[in-house]
């Protein structure tokens, strides 16, 4: 006896307008989840397998396919919602932790949407970016807090302060870390080319560096996570910078999770793990059991790479975020990426993804404030990540104190991803979150790289316009400039924490 649940209500219903359909079968070819099959001259539908990835709709030449979400009602109940009930049915059938893909689905208010940007009117003129320079160039890394000079024999003064290595980006938008394994090689190559074209960098994630990415290694930030997958000296030497992954916003307090279905021969080789095995990173780094262990790791990585590369650390945003950030800032890293609770993931336990952590807006604001208070702000750059959805989010993050942002889900969407959240299945019909070669081949890096580059370019243009309207012609003048934000319908406690005034003030 497996369970008495039988057929659960459909999540999605696919229908075909039979008058429109010409039975070409493109839907059958495109759907990797097996929704469609041919029976004689008829196309049959199994809606139960649908993930709402839209692949069939995209390739139907007659627009004959329609998708409906939640076609069957439950008795409505404000407490015992559909999601709650379905989780119970699911877990009482399996006895397992529910795994989910992509970012949090919690319907909590988004702070970004309650922050309004400023513009100049009469007391100051706006800057016109078509006619005057507006600088978005950003340097990520340690900056001196003051400068020292020495007098030369001829009386001239000369700078004696040595500058630490910094990454220079032409726009404050970087492509965040998603591993090879979680996503395909073609997805990685597409983003790497986009990074090269737009003068920015991309993260490798924790899955090592496939040889197919060596041509773009100058644009890669190579990651060391607790599983140490794919980490060796060759890997470290290839990257432009190195990131220590200490946490992830979608699942604070636990390690990475790559289902064995996605560990193909290529992934196995790159990660240095057996083919088909689940790759589950430990929750902590096994060489960091106290904050004092982190500087040792930072120093060894720095020494291994000759002190030439900036070292980043990524942490998940949790309650004592400010304390974590200053602790990491003291460890000698050059930049800290803070990942908010809405951050994406290829696979995470649903209960973590939807219930653990704090919003990125608050995490950046408190980090910037505490770093300044302790005189450490120039010691590290801050990178905001975890649900940066549009150029306005980038502006708001920087005004709250970030130096730059990582985007990831947005970059996937730019390659076709419909945010269906089934990444963990490894069947992504868009060729993004899969390792099945026939699916990977669907993603053409020539096309997808252009789309990602277009997105970065478009956001960059919008940021330039927004800055110009605010009368700000260099990005460092926006950083931490919270006077240029106003909170709309945010409560007083939150306004105080963000250090932002209310609209009208």
């Amino acid at each position, binding site marked *: 006896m497996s369970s008495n649940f039988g057929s659960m209500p459909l999540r999605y219903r696919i229908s075909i307008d039979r008058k429109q359909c010409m039975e070409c079968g493109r839907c059958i070819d495109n759907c990797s989840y097996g929704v469609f099959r041919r029976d004689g001259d008829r196309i049959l539908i199994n809606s139960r397998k649908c993930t709402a990835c839209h692949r069939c709709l995209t390739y139907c030449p007659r627009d004959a396919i329609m998708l409906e979400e939640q076609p069957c009602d439950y008795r409505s109940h404000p407490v015992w919602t559909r999601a709650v009930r379905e989780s119970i049915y699911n877990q009482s059938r399996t006895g397992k932790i529910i795994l989910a893909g992509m970012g949090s689905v919690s319907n909590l208010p988004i702070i970004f949407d309650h922050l309004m940007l400023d513009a100049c009117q009469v007391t100051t003129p706006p*800057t016109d970016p078509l006619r005057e320079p507006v600088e978005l160039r950003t340097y990520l890394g340690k900056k*001196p807090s003051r400068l020292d000079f020495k007098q030369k024999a001829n009386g001239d003064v000369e700078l004696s302060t040595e500058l630490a290595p910094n990454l220079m980006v032409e726009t404050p938008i970087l492509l965040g870390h998603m591993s090879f394994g979680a996503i395909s090689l073609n997805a990685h190559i597409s983003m790497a080319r986009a990074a090269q074209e737009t003068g920015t960098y991309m993260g490798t994630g924790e899955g090592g560096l496939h040889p197919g990415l060596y041509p773009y290694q100058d644009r890669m930030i190579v990651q060391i996570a607790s599983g140490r997958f794919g980490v060796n000296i060759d890997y470290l030497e290839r990257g432009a910078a190195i990131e220590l992954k200490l946490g992830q916003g979608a699942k604070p307090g636990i390690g990475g999770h790559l289902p064995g279905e996605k560990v193909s021969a290529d992934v196995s080789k790159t990660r240095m793990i057996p083919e088909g095995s689940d790759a589950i990173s430990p929750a902590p780094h096994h060489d960091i059991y106290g904050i004092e262990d982190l500087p040792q790791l930072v120093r060894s990585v720095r020494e291994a790479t000759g002190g030439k590369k900036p070292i980043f650390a990524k942490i998940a945003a949790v309650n004592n975020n400010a304390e974590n950030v200053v602790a990491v800032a003291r460890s000698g890293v050059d930049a800290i990426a803070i990942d908010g609770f809405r951050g994406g993931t290829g696979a995470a336990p649903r209960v973590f993804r939807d219930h653990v952590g704090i919003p990125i807006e608050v995490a950046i604001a408190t980090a910037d404030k505490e770093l300044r208070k302790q005189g450490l702000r120039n010691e590290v750059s801050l990178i905001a990540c975890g649900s940066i959805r549009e150029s306005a989010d980038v502006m708001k993050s920087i005004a709250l104190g970030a130096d730059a942002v990582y985007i990831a889900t947005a970059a996937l969407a730019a390659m076709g991803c419909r945010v269906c959240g089934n990444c963990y299945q490894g069947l992504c019909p868009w060729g993004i979150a899969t390792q099945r070669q026939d699916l990977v081949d669907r993603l053409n890096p020539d096309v997808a790289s252009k789309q990602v580059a277009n997105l970065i370019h478009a956001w960059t243009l919008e940021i330039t316009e927004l800055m110009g309207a605010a009368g*700000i012609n260099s990005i460092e*003048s926006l*950083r931490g400039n919270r006077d240029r934000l106003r909170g709309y319908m945010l409560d007083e406690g939150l306004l105080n924490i963000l250090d932002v005034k209310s609209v009208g003030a």
Partner: protein
Amino acid sequence: MCGIFGVMDKRRQMMDGSGIRDALSIMNERGSGEGAGYVAYGIYPDYQNCYALHVLLDNPGKSKAVVDATLEQWGAIEHEEAIPTCDQPNLRTTCTPWRYFFKPDATLAPGSTSPEKDIITNLVMQINAAQNGAEVISSGKNVGVFKAGGSGAWPEDVANYYRIQDYEGYIWLAHNRYATASPEKWERPDPFNLHDWSVVENGKITTYGANRRYIESFGYTCSMSTDSEVITYLIDLLVRKHGLDINLAIRALAPPYWDEIDRMPEAEQKLNRALRFAYGSATMNGPFTIVAANPDMMVGFTDRGKLRPMVVGECDDRLYIASEEVAIRAMEPKVESITRPAAGEPVIGRVAP
């Protein structure tokens, strides 16, 4: 849309305030008649070893006691008096200008390389941040700020109220205000002063919030919500505490564009990059022309797009910096040279040693 004016005599020859008043008044169409101010260096030779504290007292009966007590904690008052004034029919007096000649007790700031100035800085922050009805508007040796706000405060009214013609200085800065926020407050118009440095600004920086957060992380407290306060503190921090030459300090506040830096010779590139790295949060954006002075120099600089005017005049030993040429000609009809420096090109005049 304010009018600013500065004049410096390189050989410390004295100028009385009447010419400055005339120069400022001729730019009245740049103001709104709700605030003006003057600052002069060299006006208190009899007390040149004391810090002259100009204080606006809302109610001398109450607020003066607070200032007296604070000063006595930190040093000795050598002399004090009401600043002589002469009521003007159009100017509504809302406070009493007072001056103290004060000697800080340097032993109270042990370990400091400039203990007296540290004490003065702390004093000014303490008095101005508190709601005590007293605002210190200038605090340097042999220097004083005279300013007023509210309706009827045209430059000539303010000058006549303070009998500005009775003071003689070798550097003068003056400001004709087009009021936006808090026009009624006497402490709001420029000049703004902190011991050595005085600042007048024509502009409105768009980076006030970022700059304020930066300067406050070094222990300064901004209580006036005005650009010039932040700018004065930034200059004090960069020059006195961080030891930057004024040239570099100006470059940190209004740096060249990255494209320009990329084209510089290597050593210069490194220096400019280092300045932008270190002082990114001190960089000022938005339209401004600033004229600043200390006992040894007067400097003028603009935002790097030069969205506000700056005219420079030279005649014999005198250097003039103003919003408009007409102001310079009002004081010096025979001015020899008039120039308009390009954006990002600071003007630095030093008094002969």
